[in-house]
C-alpha cells in the first residue's frame, strides 16, 4: 500500500495499522491497572489505530458490558486522562471497541471461538485481520496458550494480516525454563513476531540513557575504564510484597529485579554505540554486554554477592511486618528480598570497572538510580579532605535518576566563597519536570503497547538477551540454594539493607550512595 501523502510532516505521524489486541488473562490486575488505562491514554492522544478491537479473553463468565464496567473502574483510577463522564463521547467511543470472549486457557475449542470472533470482527469492520496477542496471565499458562494458538494456526502471518505476541515477564525461572519457553514460542511464532516486555525499558529516563550517551559528544570520551571508577545501579522499593506474596516467595529479588530490570539498565549503560537506532542493532550491542559479563563462579559468590530479607520495621512512619509475617509467605521462607551483587564486564571499555547492583524491598524510599562514579584527579593540588572516605564521597558522579523525580545530575567540586580554598561538592541538575514543565509523563506501557502495534521491537528483549541474562544470575541462584555462604542476612524494614552490603563495598574501598 502506498504511503498516505496526508500523513507527511511531524504532526500527524503514522498511527499503527488497524489491529485486534487480544489480552489473555484480561480480568487480572495488569489489564485493569496498566494495560487498558495505557490504551485509554493513547486513545485520548489519538495515537491508537483508526480501527481497533480490544478483546479480553479469560475464564470468568463475563459479558462485554461486565468487562467494560470493570475496565472503566481501572481507567478512572489509573489512566493519565480523566473520564469526566462515563456516558460521554470519550469513554463510550473507547468502550465501544472493548469486547470479551470467555474461555479456559486449557480448552482448545475456546481458542477456536476466539479465532472466529477475531476474523468475523475484522470482516465486519472492514479492517485487516492484524492481531497482537498479549499474555497477561500467570506465567504457568504461557506454554499452554502459545501451543493452543499454534494448534489452531493463529500465529502465522498471512495476507489478511500480521500476528505478533507480547509476553510479560517473568520469562522463565532460570536458564533452562527460559530456553524451554523460547523453544515452545519459536515452534509457533518467529522471533520477529515476539515482543518480550520489560516495562522498565518504556520509562522515559531509561530511554534517555541512549540519548544522553549517543546524542552528546561530551560523555562518550569519558565513558570507559580510564575515567570511570565504578558504576552503581540501585533499585530501591519502599513497598513490601503485598498482593504478590505467592509469586514473590518463589521468585525472590533476583528473578523479580536483577534478571530483567537491573540487567537491562546495565546493558544500556555499558553497551557500545549501535550502528543505527534500530531494534536489532541496539539489541545486538546489549547482548554483547551480557556475553562479556564475567559469570560469577560458585566460589566467588560469597565475596561478590549479598542476600537478605527484611524484618519488621517502620516505613513512611508506619509499622510494617517482617517478610515472613506477610500472608502468603512460607513461615520460615529463605527467599531474599534484598541483594547486592558486584559484576565485571570483560571487554576493552570496562575491564576492571566493577558494576555494583543492589535492590531491595521495604527500603526507606522508592528510588531507581544509576550512578557513574568517576576516578579522582591523578594529582590533587588542594588540601585533602578530612578522611579518605570523605574524598571518595566527593568524586565526580553522574547520577541518572530513573524514578521518581526523573533527571540527571553531575556532582563536582567547587570553591566555597570566602578566604582560603575550601572545597565543597555541588551539583548541576537536570530534572525532567522542571526542564520540560511536565508533571505527568506517559506511562511505560503506553509507549510499549504503541511500539508493539507499530512493529518496533527496540524496547523489547530478544530471546538471546533473556537467555544470557539468566546465564548471569543462574550461578548465583544455584550457589545460594546449595550453600549457606553468604548467609541470608536480615535488615530492618525502612533501612538501606544489611551490613553485608556495606561490607561488600567497603572491601573495595567504596560505599553506596545515599539515594
Amino acid at each position, binding site marked *: *500500500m*502506498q504511503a*498516505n*501523502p*496526508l*500523513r*507527511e*510532516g*511531524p*504532526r*500527524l505521524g503514522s*498511527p499503527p495499522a488497524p489491529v485486534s489486541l487480544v489480552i489473555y488473562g484480561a480480568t487480572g490486575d495488569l489489564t485493569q491497572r496498566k494495560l487498558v488505562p495505557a490504551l485509554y491514554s493513547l486513545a*485520548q492522544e*489519538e495515537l491508537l489505530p*483508526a*480501527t481497533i478491537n480490544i478483546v479480553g479473553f479469560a475464564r470468568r463468565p463475563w459479558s462485554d458490558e461486565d468487562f467494560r464496567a470493570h475496565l472503566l473502574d481501572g481507567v478512572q483510577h489509573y489512566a493519565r486522562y480523566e473520564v469526566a463522564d462515563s456516558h*460521554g*463521547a*470519550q469513554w463510550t*467511543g473507547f468502550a465501544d471497541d472493548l469486547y470479551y470472549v470467555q474461555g479456559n486457557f486449557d480448552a482448545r475449542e475456546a481458542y477456536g471461538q476466539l479465532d472466529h470472533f477475531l476474523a468475523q470482527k475484522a470482516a465486519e469492520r*472492514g479492517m485487516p485481520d492484524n492481531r497482537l496477542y498479549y499474555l497477561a496471565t500467570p506465567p504457568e499458562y504461557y506454554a499452554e496458550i502459545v501451543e493452543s494458538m499454534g494448534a489452531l494456526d493463529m500465529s502465522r502471518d498471512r495476507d489478511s494480516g500480521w500476528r505478533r505476541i507480547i509476553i510479560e515477564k517473568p520469562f522463565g525461572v532460570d536458564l533452562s525454563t527460559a530456553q524451554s519457553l523460547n523453544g515452545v514460542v519459536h515452534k509457533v511464532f518467529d522471533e520477529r513476531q515476539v515482543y518480550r516486555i520489560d516495562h522498565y525499558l518504556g520509562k522515559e529516563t531509561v530511554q534517555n540513557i541512549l540519548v544522553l550517551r549517543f546524542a552528546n559528544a561530551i560523555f562518550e570520551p569519558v565513558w570507559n575504564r580510564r575515567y570511570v571508577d565504578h558504576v552503581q545501579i540501585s533499585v530501591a522499593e519502599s513497598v513490601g510484597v503485598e498482593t504478590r506474596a505467592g509469586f514473590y516467595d518463589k521468585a525472590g529479588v533476583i528473578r523479580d529485579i536483577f534478571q530483567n530490570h537491573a540487567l537491562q539498565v546495565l546493558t544500556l549503560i555499558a553497551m557500545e554505540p549501535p550502528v543505527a537506532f534500530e531494534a536489532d542493532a541496539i539489541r545486538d550491542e546489549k547482548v554483547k554486554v551480557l556475553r562479556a559479563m564475567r559469570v560469577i563462579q560458585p566460589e566467588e559468590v560469597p565475596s561478590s554477592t549479598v542476600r537478605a530479607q527484611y524484618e519488621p520495621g517502620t516505613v513512611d512512619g508506619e509499622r510494617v511486618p517482617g517478610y515472613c509475617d506477610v500472608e502468603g509467605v512460607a513461615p520460615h521462607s529463605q527467599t531474599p528480598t534484598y541483594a547486592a551483587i558486584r559484576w565485571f564486564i570483560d571487554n576493552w571499555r570496562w575491564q576492571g570497572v566493577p558494576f555494583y547492583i543492589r535492590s531491595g524491598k521495604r527500603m526507606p524510599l522508592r528510588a531507581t538510580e544509576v550512578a557513574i562514579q568517576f576516578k579522582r584527579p591523578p594529582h590533587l593540588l588542594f588540601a585533602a579532605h578530612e578522611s579518605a572516605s570523605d574524598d571518595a564521597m566527593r568524586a565526580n558522579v553522574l547520577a541518572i535518576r530513573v524514578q521518581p523525580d526523573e533527571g540527571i545530575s553531575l556532582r563536582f567540586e567547587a570553591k566555597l566563597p570566602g578566604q582560603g580554598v575550601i572545597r565543597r561538592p555541588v551539583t548541576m541538575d537536570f530534572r525532567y*519536570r*522542571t*526542564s*520540560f*514543565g*511536565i*508533571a*505527568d509523563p506517559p506511562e511505560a506501557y503506553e509507549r510499549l503497547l504503541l511500539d508493539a502495534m507499530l512493529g518496533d521491537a527496540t524496547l523489547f528483549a530478544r530471546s538471546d538477551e533473556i537467555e544470557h541474562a539468566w546465564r548471569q544470575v543462574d550461578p548465583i541462584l544455584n550457589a545460594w540454594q546449595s550453600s549457606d555462604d553468604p548467609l541470608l542476612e536480615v535488615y530492618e524494614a525502612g533501612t538501606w539493607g544489611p551490613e553485608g552490603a556495606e561490607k561488600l563495598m567497603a572491601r573495595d574501598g567504596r560505599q553506596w550512595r545515599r539515594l
Partner: protein
Amino acid sequence: MVQIFQTEPRQVSVQDVREQLRSLWMSEALTDRAVIRAHTHNLIVYVPATLGDINQAMERVIKATLLRPGRVILIHADSTGVDGLNAWVTTYCRPVKNHKVCGELVALAASGHLRDEVHSTVSSLLLPDLPVVLVWLDQPSMRDHLFLELLEETDRVIFDSSRSEHIVETLRAQSLLPARFQIGDLTWARLTPFRRLVAHLVDEIGAHTLVSRLSSVHIEVVSKAVPSSAVLLAGWLADSLKWEFNKAESTSSSMTLRYSTSQDAVSVKLNAVESGTVPHGTIMRCVFQGAAGAAFISLTYVPERACIELTNMLDGLSERRHGYAAGPVDAASALAEELDFGYDPVYRRALQAAVNAFV
C-alpha cells in the same frame, strides 16, 4: 476550566525585573504544593494595544502559555501613546496532581517611540541557552523595526492568522518571510484534529481512491468571511494531493478554488457560516463529493457532543458513523502544539499553496 494560581502582578522598574522575579519565586516555594518552575524556552509575545489593555493582555497570555510555561516576555505595544516603558512581573501555575507547574511572565508596556526600542530590554531578559520563540499577534511587516529586531533574536516566529480581517495580505506577508525564519501559525495547529481525521480516512481508503472519486470538497467554517483556517486546509489538501491551481472565484462569504488533478478536476468550495456558540474559525463540516455531487465522506463537528462525527459512505461498505472526541482547539493547546513540534515544512507548503490561489 483549568485552575490558575497566579501571584498579583507587581509593577517594577525595568532594572529590577530579575530581582523581583527571584523574590516571587522565593515566596512561591513556600506554598503547600511542590512547585515545578519550567525552564523550556523563552517566549516573546507581541500584542498590539488595539487588542486590549495591559491587564487583558497579561490574562490572555497567561492562559495561552499555561500548558507550556517558561519565561514569557509580553510586549504590549502602543506606538501612538506618549513615550513610556513600564514593567510588571508575575508567576503563574497550573495544578498537576500534587504539583504546581509554573512559569513566569514579564510584561513590558511600551508606548510612543520606545515601542521601537523595546527589543534591547527584551534581549536583556532572555534566559541563555534556551530557544527563543516569538509569537507575533499582529500583521507582520518587513518595514517594522521592532519586528525585524526581534526576528533576529528568535529561533522561531509564530503568527495567528485567524485574527486577521485581511487574510490575503496576512498570509502573503507570512509567506514572504525569508526561508531562514522558521514560521508557524496557531491557525495551523487548530486544524490538526480535522487534518488528522482526514488523514485517518485516507489511511482506510487510500489516496488514489479518494482522488479518483472526488469531484468537489465543501468546507464550512464559522466566520463572517472565509477565514485563514479554511484557506490553509484547502492549501494543505492541494499540496499533499498534488493538485494544480487553476482559478479562484469569491464572494463576501464564500470562495471556490478550482484545481486540476492527475485524474480530472476538483473544486474546493469554502463557505463562511454563522454560529452563535462555536468559536470563530472552527471548521464545522468537510464533505467530499463524487462526480454526481453525492457525498461519500463527511466530517461534521457536533458541538453538543464535543466531537467530530465521521461518516463513510464508500461503496462496498455500509454507512459507518464514528465520533471522535475533538472540539475547537484553544489558544493554550494550539501554542503547546506549535512549541512541541517546532517547524513544520508541511505548513509552509500549505501556506504557499493557499497564497498561490490569490496571485
